């Protein structure tokens, strides 16, 4: 008898419930439910970083164009040149330096495949000698910014106009003034310059200015672009041409000045660095432009109120889709594939990139799946963790997101994004919320 009960009571190997039967589904969602919130306010504005570091970017950025939305963009490039040796002799045994004669001097620009705008148009550049060394006056700051400039000789050493083929990478040659070249040559020939210090003292550097009158585009050139000095040895009648090259050895001594003339555009009234221009005032659009420092700022003013939707709730996932405005991009002004995301305070001070749990930066990636109206094109940003943290953090301060284009310091791409009131290309925030 006891055995019988023992078996019953101890061998409770009841069958496993596979969970296929569910009753009263309406009631199931009462306890814990998942809600989609897509009505939270998203404030979109444009900010203006007035100083982007453009030195040390290893790109000579040249060109100018009239952007139909943003205004006139111009990029000039400043740099210091140097050489490994200032000796004209090709061998140590060569003692016939006196026989060298100057032939020519030219700037060779090597395209680096970067371009933006209409590069089928003729571009014009003009090269000038710097009157100031490429050196910052400030004590602790060796950087040059997109708005930095140095004095230069208004007399051009040489200029050219060309139709670029950035993909074919045809080099651009600019013949420089012979008088300048000969004087330069004589200094070397007479051994008046033997060190880089002496060289830089004499020849502080060059600025290449973009002087196209008509709208065209902006191109990038390699940092290995060089100044070539040709000279020859007059011993016999047969001339042997010798080449001396001067290059940008120190990339921190090269920077691009990128300026934007916004006169007459809808962003003509951009405020200072610490403020923002609401997209409500700019046709429900926000503007990002590399090189000139325009960035999109996104605020979530009501995020903390989500706490009160239910007694206890958490944001389990969130996605922000911010859309480029129709007819603001084209083959000439293509969309970039991704945007950088920074976290900023109320004064646009960045605390760093928006990172995933593993510490990797999160990007806003472009969904290119196009439909008839271009409504599906948008940059999506996974914001689950950010939103949960913003909702639950104790302090009153709210963080904002700042979107920039990855080439911010070395390009001129731009994008126009819609806000919540933009009819065709509305920014959309989807928050998945669970009450528990």
């Amino acid at each position, binding site marked *: 008898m006891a055995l019988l009960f023992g078996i019953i009571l101890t061998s409770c190997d*009841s069958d496993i419930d596979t969970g296929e039967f569910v*009753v009263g589904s309406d009631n199931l969602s009462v306890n814990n439910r998942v809600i*989609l919130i897509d009505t939270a306010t998203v404030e979109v504005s444009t900010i203006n970083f007035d100083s982007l570091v453009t030195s040390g970017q290893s790109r000579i950025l040249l060109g100018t164009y009239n952007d139909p939305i943003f205004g006139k963009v111009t990029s000039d490039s400043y740099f210091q040149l140097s050489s490994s040796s200032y000796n004209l002799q090709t061998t140590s045994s060569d003692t016939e330096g006196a026989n060298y004669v100057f032939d020519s001097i030219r700037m060779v620009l090597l395209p680096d495949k970067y371009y933006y705008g209409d590069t089928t148009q003729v571009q014009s550049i003009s090269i000038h000698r710097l009157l100031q060394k490429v050196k910052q006056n400030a004590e602790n700051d060796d950087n040059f910014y997109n708005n930095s400039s140095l004095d230069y000789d208004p007399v051009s050493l040489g200029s050219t106009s060309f139709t670029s083929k950035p993909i074919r990478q045809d080099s651009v040659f600019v013949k420089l003034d012979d008088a300048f070249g000969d004087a330069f040559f004589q200094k070397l020939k007479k051994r008046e310059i033997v060190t880089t210090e002496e060289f830089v003292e004499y020849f502080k550097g060059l600025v290449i200015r973009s002087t196209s009158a008509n709208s065209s585009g902006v191109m990038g050139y390699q940092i290995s672009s060089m100044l070539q000095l040709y000279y020859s040895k007059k011993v016999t009648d047969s001339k042997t041409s010798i080449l001396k090259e001067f290059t940008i050895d120190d990339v921190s001594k090269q920077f691009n000045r990128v300026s934007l003339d916004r006169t007459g555009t809808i962003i003509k009234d951009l405020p200072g660095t610490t403020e923002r221009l609401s997209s409500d005032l700019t046709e429900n659009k926000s503007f990002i432009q590399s090189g000139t420092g325009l960035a999109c700022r996104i605020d979530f003013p009501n995020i903390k109120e989500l706490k009160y939707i239910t007694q206890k709730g958490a944001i389990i996932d969130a996605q922000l889709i911010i859309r480029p405005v129709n007819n603001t991009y084209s083959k000439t002004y293509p969309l970039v594939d991704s945007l950088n995301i920074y976290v900023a305070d109320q004064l646009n001070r960045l605390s760093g990139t928006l990172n995933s749990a593993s510490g990797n930066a999160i990007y806003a990636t472009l969904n290119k799946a196009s439909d008839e109206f271009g409504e599906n094109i948008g940059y999506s940003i996974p914001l689950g963790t950010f939103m949960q943290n913003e909702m639950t953090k104790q302090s009153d301060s709210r963080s904002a997101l700042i979107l920039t284009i990855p080439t911010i310091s070395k390009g001129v791409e731009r994008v126009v994004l819609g806000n919540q009131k933009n009819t065709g290309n509305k920014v959309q925030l989807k928050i998945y919320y669970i009450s528990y």
Partner: protein
Amino acid sequence: MKNKITIILFLILVSFSSFSQSLSSSPYSIYGLGSLYESDFGSLPAMGSAGIALPSNRFINNLNPASLGFMYQNHFLFDVGGNAIQTSYQDVSRKESRNNVQFSHVAFAFPVTSKSGLSVALRPYSSAGFKISDYKLPIQDSNEEYTLNVTGTGGLNNFDISYGYRVGKKLALGLSTSILFGTIKDASEYLTSNSLTNIDKESTYNGARISLGGQFKVDSTFTIGVNLKSPAKINATKVQSVTTYNADLNASNTIESEVHSDIDDYYLPFEFAVGLNKQFKNNLSLSMDYEKAFWQGTDQADIYGNYLNQEKFKLGLSYRKDHNLRTYFDRIQFSTGLNYDTGYLELGNKRIENKAISIGVALPIENTYSVLNVSYSYGQRGRISSGLIKENYHKISLNLSLDGIWFVKRKFE
């Protein structure tokens, strides 16, 4: 006799250890405190659980504490039981069977004086055993869905001490104090297209309720009984951990970890039960009970589901040869019964009803009142309709009702 005591102690130990296990599984047990558990003693399961008017003379009648007033002198009663249930679950499109073996109860009772008796019993009150896999639910305010996986285990136990006192020869009154306690564990997974949220909840319940019973012998063959159960508040607290994982961000986030909090208390309603028992020709016994539980007035929180007043109708019949007991067969009691329960849970505007028929035998052990009750019942619960399922169950109950003589207890003293 010593062996028997050893067996009894062994059974008690085993019984207690089985309490921790999930008792039954039913999709309906996701609501409230789980499915309420019918664990009746002795031959009651065979008689449709009818017996408000039955005395506690040959077995412990758990339906009415007043029955202890009619205990036989010098008898010590012990009852332990278990069930084996095969249930088939059926909805509009599927059918599935599962077997389940469960502990039912352990109890003992003894007379205190010639006019009074005391019983102590431990049995399940409710059991939550449910599982939901890959169930799609709409995300509120969207066209999207999420997937729910839930596993629930646990239930409440009922420990009660009952006392019955006989006033004169015909009337007995009883009082029972029940302590309800237990935990229900609930592990849920919520899957959206891009996130997984785990909510692990352990809810602990405890509360007490009092029952008052009465039995009146109208004549030597006719008894009426009544039992009133007080409303009660079952205090509820929970310990919960919530973690989420976001696939896009590859981020795990602990929302809360082992957080203790109060949850909505659960309320048991006022219940009453009336019943009668009539003996015919000294060998046929008819019991009829009616019970009503006023769940509608409990105003349960939404999380427990939607409740209606519950009614139960029970009918039981037993036969035992009264004299000329020549063979073992002559001493067997045969029983049968019907049980209809309107249920108290309403889902999708439909009551979850339960109906069962039962038959059983009480097989005597040695020359005492000790018997092994074997009963079989077939029942149906719920219905097939959208969002509901029907459970058809075959249940075999084994209740061992042991009868010891009073001096056995004295040995302990």
